[in-house]
C-alpha cells in the first residue's frame, strides 16, 4: 500500500525509470549478474568478430589442403594446450576434416541469434496477446487464455518437434517452433500485470481524462508490466538456446554444414567412444552460454525485486 502515493505522483514512467536505475545500481553488487554479463559480452564479441577469432573456414574440409597435417578423429585429438605439436588445429579436426575450433567459434553466432530472436518474437506476440486478454477481458480473455493453456499442456520440446516436422526441418522453422512454445509464458505474465495495474487509481484517472486505450496501454500499462517480462525473457534465452540445440541434435534444426553447436554434437555423437572431444567442446560452449543468461536473469530478478531491496 505504501507504494501507491508515489505511483500517483510520479505516474508509470517515472517509477519504472527509477526502478531501472536502481536495478542497474543493484546489479553492480551482484557477482552472479556481473559474471553473467561478462560471459554474454565475451560471447557477443566472439560472435561478431568470429572471422578474427577463427583460425580456419568453418565449413571447409582440410583434405587435400597443401601443408595440412591435421589428424582425422579416428586418431587421438591433437590439442596444443595439452602439449601436442600440431598448432594449426587448436581442437583438432571433425569427422569431415573441418577445424573444430573454428566451427565452435562460428557456432556462437547461430546460437546467440536463435536465442535472442526466439525470445524477442515470443515476448512481442505473448505480450500483445496477454495485454489484449487482460485489458479487453470477457470473451477475448477466455479464448486467448484457454488457447495458451492448451499450448502449455504440451511438453515444450514435443510441441516444437511437431511444429518443425510440419514446417520442415531447418533453423528458421526450429526458431518458429520454439517461439510458439514460449508465447504462453509471456501472455500469462503480461496479463497478470495488466489485471493488477488496470484498476489502479492512476490508470482510472487517465481514463477519466479521456485517454485512448492505446495510450493507456503503451504509456502506463506496458512500462509497469515489462519488468517481470524482461527477467523471464533473459532466463528464457538460455532455455531457447538449449531447445534449439536439442532440435538440431535430433536433426530438425540447423542443417549441415552450418556450424551450430547442437548440430556439431549430433554429427559427432557416433564417434563418442573414439573422439569424445568432438562432443565435449560444443556441449561446453552451449553450457557456458546458457549459464551466462541464467546468471544475468537471476541477478536482474534480484535487482528488480523491491522486496529484496536493501536500500
Amino acid at each position, binding site marked *: 500500500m505504501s507504494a501507491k502515493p508515489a505511483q500517483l505522483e510520479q505516474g508509470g514512467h517515472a517509477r519504472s525509470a527509477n526502478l531501472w536505475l536502481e536495478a542497474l545500481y543493484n546489479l553492480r553488487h551482484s557477482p552472479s549478474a556481473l559474471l553473467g554479463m561478462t560471459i554474454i559480452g565475451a560471447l557477443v564479441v566472439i560472435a561478431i568478430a568470429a572471422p578474427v577469432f577463427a583460425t580456419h573456414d568453418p565449413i571447409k574440409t582440410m583434405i587435400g589442403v597443401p601443408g595440412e597435417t591435421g589428424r582425422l578423429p579416428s586418431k587421438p585429438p591433437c590439442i596444443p594446450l595439452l602439449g601436442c605439436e600440431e598448432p594449426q588445429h587448436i581442437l583438432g579436426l571433425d569427422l569431415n576434416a573441418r577445424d573444430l575450433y573454428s566451427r565452435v567459434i562460428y557456432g556462437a553466432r547461430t546460437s546467440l541469434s536463435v536465442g535472442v530472436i526466439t525470445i524477442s518474437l515470443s515476448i512481442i506476440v505473448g505480450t500483445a496477446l496477454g495485454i489484449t486478454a487482460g485489458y479487453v477481458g470477457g470473451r477475448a480473455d477466455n479464448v486467448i487464455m484457454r488457447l495458451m493453456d*492448451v499450448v502449455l499442456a504440451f511438453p515444450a520440446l514435443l510441441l516444437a518437434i511437431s511444429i518443425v516436422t510440419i514446417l520442415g526441418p531447418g533453423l528458421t522453422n526450429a526458431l518458429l517452433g520454439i517461439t510458439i512454445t514460449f508465447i504462453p509464458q509471456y501472455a500469462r505474465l503480461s496479463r497478470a500485470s495488466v489485471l493488477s495495474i488496470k484498476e489502479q487509481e492512476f490508470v482510472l484517472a487517465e481514463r477519466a481524462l479521456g485517454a485512448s486505450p492505446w495510450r493507456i496501454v503503451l504509456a502506463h500499462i506496458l512500462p509497469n508490466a515489462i519488468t517481470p517480462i524482461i527477467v523471464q525473457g533473459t532466463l528464457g534465452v538460455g532455455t531457447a538456446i538449449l531447445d534449439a540445440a536439442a532440435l538440431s541434435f535430433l536433426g530438425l534444426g540447423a542443417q549441415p554444414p552450418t556450424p551450430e553447436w547442437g548440430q556439431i554434437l549430433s554429427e559427432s555423437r557416433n564417434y563418442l567412444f573414439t573422439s569424445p572431444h568432438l562432443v565435449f567442446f560444443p556441449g561446453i560452449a552451449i553450457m557456458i552460454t546458457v*549459464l551466462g543468461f541464467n546468471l544475468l536473469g537471476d541477478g536482474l530478478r534480484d535487482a528488480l525485486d523491491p522486496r529484496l531491496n536493501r536500500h
Partner: protein
Amino acid sequence: MLTFVLRRLTFSIPVIFGIMIVTFALARAIPGDPCLAVLGERATPEICEAFARRNGLDQPVPVQLLIYMRNFAGGDLGDSLRFHRPVMELLVERLPTTVELGCFALLFAISIGVPIGVLSAYRHKSALDVGTMIGANIGVSMPVFWLGLMLAYLFAVLLKDTPLALPPSGRLTPGANPQPFYALWGWVVEGQEPAGILVFFSRINTLNALLTLNGELLVDALRHLILPAVAVGTIPLAIIARMSRSSVLEVLSQDYVRTARAKGLREGKVVGVHALRNALLPVITVIGLNFGLVISGAVLTETIFSLTGVGRTLVDSITSRDYTLVQGFTVVIAAGFVLINMVVDIMYGYLDPRIRFN
C-alpha cells in the same frame, strides 16, 4: 475439499478437448501422403484409395475427428500405420520404459534436490550454500543430450574395468528375459492374452523384479537406469534445489518462525515442523511442472541410450508420418501432463487451505 476437486476437474476437461483437437490438426498437417509413407513410393492410386478407406481417411476431416474422439473415449487409439498394430498395444509396451525412467529421474532429483536446498538455506551464505548455487546454475544450463553422452563416455569407457562401470545402452543385459510377475503368480490362463494393465506393470523392470523377488534382475535394471535417470534428472534437480532453498529462506525470516524460536522450541522442531511444512508447498508445484522437462529429457535420452520408450518412438513416428501413433501418444502424454498438474493443484489445495477457499 470435494467442491475444490470437482472445480479443478471441470477446468481440465476443456483443456483435454483442446489437446485432442490440436493434436488431431497437427497430425493432419504433417506433410506427405501417409499411404506413400507406409506402403512405399510405388503404391498405386487404387491401392492408396483402399488404404484410405480402410483407415477412415476418405471421410471429411470433421467426421474423422468425431470418430477419433468417440474411439478415444472407448480406449481405442486406432492402428499404427507403421507397425500395423493397435496404438494402445504399443503404448502399453513402450510407456513403461518412459514411466520408469521418469520416476527414477524425479526420485533422483527430489531426494537430492530438496535436502540440499533446505540445508543451503539453513546455512545461508556458507560454503555449502555458495557451492550448491553454483552447482545448481551449472546443472540448469547443461544440455540433457550432452550430459547423457558425457556420462556414457565416463562410465562405459573411462571407468570400463572398474566396479563403477555402467552399461551405456538398453534396459537390461542382452539376452535377459525376465519372467513377468503375473505368469509367476499364475494370474494368466494358458493360451490367453494377459490384460494390458498387467503387461504394463510387468514391463516396469524394477517393479517386476521386486514383485518376483528377483534380486539379480533388480540390480541389472537399476544399473541400466542410473545413467539415463541422472541425465534426465539433473535439470529438475537443480531447479528443485534452487526452489526449496529460496522458499525455505523466505519462510525462515517470517515472524512465526521467530516466535517459535523465541518460545524456546528446539531448532530441529522449528525447521522440521514449522518451517518445512510451509516452505515445501511451492516445491510441490515445481515438481509437478518438471514433468514436462522429464518428458522432453526422455525424448533425447531415450535416443542416446537406445531405449524404446514413448519419446523415441514418437520422434521416429513423426519423421515417418505415422500419424495415428503420433496422435495417440501425444494426446496421452499431454493429458497425463494436465492430470499431473491437476493432482499437484489438488495436493496444494489440501496442504494450503487458503487456496482451497479462494
